[in-house]
């Protein structure tokens, strides 16, 4: 039976009608496209009147298929699907043609725009006839949530959810939660003590009845899908039994092995082989660093075990795999610091008094290795002048194109702390001063008044090769001052490099485990950069904080809370709809060649070793079509995007194309005699 297709062309005010003769497209479609029984244009199809028109026609004209030519399906596909559904037509028997982004907004020739609109409408009208009714499915949402990353973002997300009464698993890779924020002394622009505002959240999370804190643990494997993820977590051996340890710290005190702390103290301080990263660590339970522990390396020592009052040391402890069920996952895995050695001209690692921003944070920190005294590498001399170099590894085509967002403000904070604590002159070498959040510009003004020197220009080199007696024994910052328009050499005692915020080295790997993608640089990709910043293309997986892009603490906290709010919405709703636009494998025809097995970006394909066939877990499939295109046997079908539908659409779009000589497609399959003349 022939389908009865209704075609509706939206003016979108003048958005479409300004460049496309919409009346002509509607008239043409009604007269020329087979099976089109209704074809209309209307000012705003998305208005309730526009929708009512479709609903009425479906009932009165007995439409079996609907095409709407309007804006992007991202905006209104759902609107029109609902209209179809309201009128009793399966919503998947509708197709939306994007006449705005694909035609009117990218074209200013009305004739050409109208012709293209006709072709696209013809494509949709041909395709829609082959569309099949589909039914979405629903799964229950497990009320527990996995939060990966125990920095400020993860803590915020975990606390929001836990306070709302939902169970949370908070997984942190290092021995304590707290993240980078725990390393800072002050936070800009308010200069409140970082630890003072962070540690209450850490201990609250540590004690919260709804939070299961898994520190020194990493995400091993994620399977399942939104509502019902199964997650395996590797809880690394601490060699200290958590339930027995009281956190008294005597083991750390007595441990004879002292090691440079490359992580928390950024190489400026020491820790023991059994340690917590910092005194306020949560949990208080220390871990043994096997690589540096005398007992593990040489077989004797066991001092920690001897001094432990509760016998909590267990040298035989093994990594443990914990399996949990969660409904949603929030990734808040944070960032890592750019390796400043990659900019050799700034001398980091070669010139003693060149510091990274994280080293300088520790240097300023009252709880840091110098007790907050800003001194040079010799441990006692106060610098008389300090240069702060911005954008080291940021805004640099050789390293990272992005702006790290926080360095300008952190540099100003450093400037303030140096001016406050020392008598040094402070120079900031900046490209552009970016202080565009609340109270930030005011802070900049404050530093101008406090007497920090600002030199606008990218530093060419930091060197200890003096050219005159004034430069002797100094670090010379060579730079073009672009405001003065000349080269300057400024001798200083100390240089601080504002290293870039970079994605974690294993961000991509973790993203793959959770079925989400990264930008080329390694930032997690949000569902929509403006309208959906914490969701991802994988249902039930959210991102928050710096793993999504460089940002400051207030933005991280806001995103952590936003992700938690999204998850709460899912939990409250209780059920989640699974789009029926998924791939499926005809298992009878599948030969088990396994080409598709490692292609799925959402891990939705499973191989059954007994049947020797592969199958798609439809609740995990996003219908991207990767496997459909790759299946060499052609036995994977993408619902809503099968060959018949796609070829029909192509034939429709090419409605006016003459069959070209020697090409393929439906036309070439038919017998077509070649002229005998040769």
């Amino acid at each position, binding site marked *: 039976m022939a389908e009865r297709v209704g075609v509706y062309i939206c003016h979108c005010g003048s958005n479409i009608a300004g460049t496309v003769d919409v009346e002509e497209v509607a008239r043409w479609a009604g007269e020329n496209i087979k099976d089109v029984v209704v074809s209309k244009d209307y000012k705003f199809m998305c208005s309730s009147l526009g929708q009512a028109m479709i609903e009425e026609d479906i009932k009165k004209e007995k439409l079996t298929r609907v095409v709407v030519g309007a804006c992007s399906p991202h905006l209104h596909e759902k609107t029109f699907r609902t209209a179809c559904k309201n009128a009793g037509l399966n919503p998947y028997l509708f197709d939306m043609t994007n006449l705005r982004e694909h035609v009117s907004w990218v074209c200013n020739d009305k004739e050409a725009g109208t012709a293209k609109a006709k072709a696209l409408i013809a494509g949709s009208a041909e395709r829609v006839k082959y569309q099949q009714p589909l039914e979405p499915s629903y799964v229950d949402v497990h009320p527990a949530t996995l939060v990966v990353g125990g920095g400020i973002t993860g803590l915020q997300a975990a606390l929001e959810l836990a306070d709302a009464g939902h169970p949370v698993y908070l997984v942190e890779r290092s021995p304590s939660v707290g993240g980078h924020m725990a390393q800072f002394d002050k936070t800009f622009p308010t200069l409140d003590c970082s630890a003072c505002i962070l540690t209450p959240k850490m201990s609250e999370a540590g004690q919260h009845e709804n939070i299961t804190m898994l520190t020194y643990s990493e995400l091993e494997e994620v399977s399942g899908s939104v509502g019902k993820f199964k997650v395996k977590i590797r809880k690394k051996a601490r060699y200290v039994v958590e339930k027995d340890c009281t956190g008294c710290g005597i083991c750390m005190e007595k441990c004879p092995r002292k090691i440079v702390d490359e992580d928390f103290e950024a190489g400026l301080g020491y820790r023991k082989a059994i340690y917590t990263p910092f005194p306020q660590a949560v949990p208080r339970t220390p871990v043994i660093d096997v690589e540096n522990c005398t007992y593990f390396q040489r077989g004797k020592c066991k001092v920690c075990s001897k001094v432990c009052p509760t016998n909590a040391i267990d040298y035989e402890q093994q990594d443990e795999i914990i399996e949990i069920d969660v409904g949603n996952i929030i990734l808040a895995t944070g960032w890592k610091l750019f390796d400043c050695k990659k900019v050799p001209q700034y001398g980091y690692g070669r010139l003693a008094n060149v510091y990274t921003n994280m080293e300088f944070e520790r240097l300023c920190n009252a709880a840091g290795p110098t007790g907050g005294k800003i001194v040079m590498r010799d441990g006692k001399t106060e610098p008389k002048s300090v240069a702060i170099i911005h954008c080291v590894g940021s805004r640099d085509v050789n390293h990272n194109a992005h702006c790290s967002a926080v360095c300008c403000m952190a540099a100003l904070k450093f400037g303030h702390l140096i001016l406050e604590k020392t008598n040094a002159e402070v120079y900031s070498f900046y490209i552009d001063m970016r202080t565009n959040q609340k109270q930030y510009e005011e802070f900049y003004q404050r530093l101008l008044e406090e007497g920090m020197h600002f030199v606008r220009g990218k530093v060419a080199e930091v060197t200890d090769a003096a050219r005159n007696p004034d430069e002797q024994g100094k670090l010379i910052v060579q730079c073009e001052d672009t405001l003065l328009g000349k080269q300057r050499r400024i001798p200083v005692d100390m240089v601080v490099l504002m290293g870039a915020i970079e994605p974690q080295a294993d961000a991509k790997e973790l993203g793959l485990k959770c079925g989400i993608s990264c930008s080329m640089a390694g930032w997690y990709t949000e569902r929509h950069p403006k309208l959906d910043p914490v969701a991802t293309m994988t249902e039930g997986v959210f991102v928050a904080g710096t793993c999504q892009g460089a940002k400051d603490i207030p933005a991280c906290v806001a995103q952590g809370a936003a992700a938690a709010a999204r998850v709460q919405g899912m939990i409250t709703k209780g059920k989640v709809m699974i789009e029926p636009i998924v791939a499926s494998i005809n298992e009878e025809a599948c*030969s088990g*060649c396994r080409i598709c097995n490692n292609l799925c970006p959402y891990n939705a394909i499973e191989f059954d070793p007994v049947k020797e066939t592969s199958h798609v877990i439809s609740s995990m499939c996003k219908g991207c079509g990767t496997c459909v*295109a790759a299946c060499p046997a052609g036995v994977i079908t993408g619902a809503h995007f099968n060959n018949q539908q796609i*070829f029909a659409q192509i034939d429709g779009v090419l409605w006016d194309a003459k069959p070209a000589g020697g*090409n393929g497609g439906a036309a*070439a399959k038919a*017998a077509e005699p070649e002229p005998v003349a*040769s």
Partner: protein
Amino acid sequence: MSEGKAKGKLAVYWAASCGGCDISTLGIDTKILDVAEHFDIVMWPCAADGKVHDIEKMADGEIDVCLFNGGIRTSEQEYMAQLLRKKSKVLVAFGSCASEGCIPGLGNLNDKASCFKTVYHDSPSLDNPNGVEPQPVTEVPEGKLHLPVYYDTLKTLGQTVKVDYMLPGCPPESDRIWDAIVAILENKLPEPGSVIGSNTTVCDECPRKREEKKIKKFYRTWEIEVDPDRCLLEQGLLCAGIATRAGCGALCPQVNSPCIGCYGPNNGVEDHGMQLLSAVASVIDSEDPDEIDAIIKEGIPDPVGSFYRFSLAQSNLRRKNKAGV
């Protein structure tokens, strides 16, 4: 056509093909006598007599089944395809040449002029001092001599006339031919227009162990020592078995030789080469475009011949652009 009924009429014909299909048909061995019991063989140039003018005199549809192997390269082949179509109730595109063009179809990378140039002028074994080429019409004292016209493009049988069934393979395996004959005799043919064969690929019949695939380098067969138990593609041999219809029993992979795709694509696949290419491309183990280019260039020096060895004429590419682009 069960016992007791009048014998049916069977025609077997060959066009642009090597003759392997006929040999494979004879490979059904003594069962050929069963065929003769059920059918009058009205034409089979390779094995029995039969004249074109006898066929021309037949009523339309008088032949019950015609098994037509070979592609259509000349005017004569085209005429025979049209004639046999008209006279046959069921026309089977028999084997790879008739179904998808096969090796003769690779001639579509050239045209008549360049084919003739190679064959009649450039071949080192030639002795053709006057540069003579075959002519459709030659005047001799006795009158005019005619030769079939050689076309620029090889077409499949299906591109020339309407075909009812296709039997894949180069050549189709004798056992599969017998299966098809039994299906004809028992009237158990599938939907008209379909391929008589299985609906899965060679991997299904291949005993090798398959795992997830990631390919860093492609090898030619002589370049590596093959692990006899592991999937050939995983070892870097461009095995077309993943994309090729089952039916042969995975003969080649079982003797360490990668499948070259002679059984054509599986049901529902529009373009065999494209499907194979798409699958192979998706398991190349690199994210770096330059490295991917290098892997393909070094390992697959003849992409058309590798991916479209049997199916170029039938594919969406069909032939090299005549302008030579």
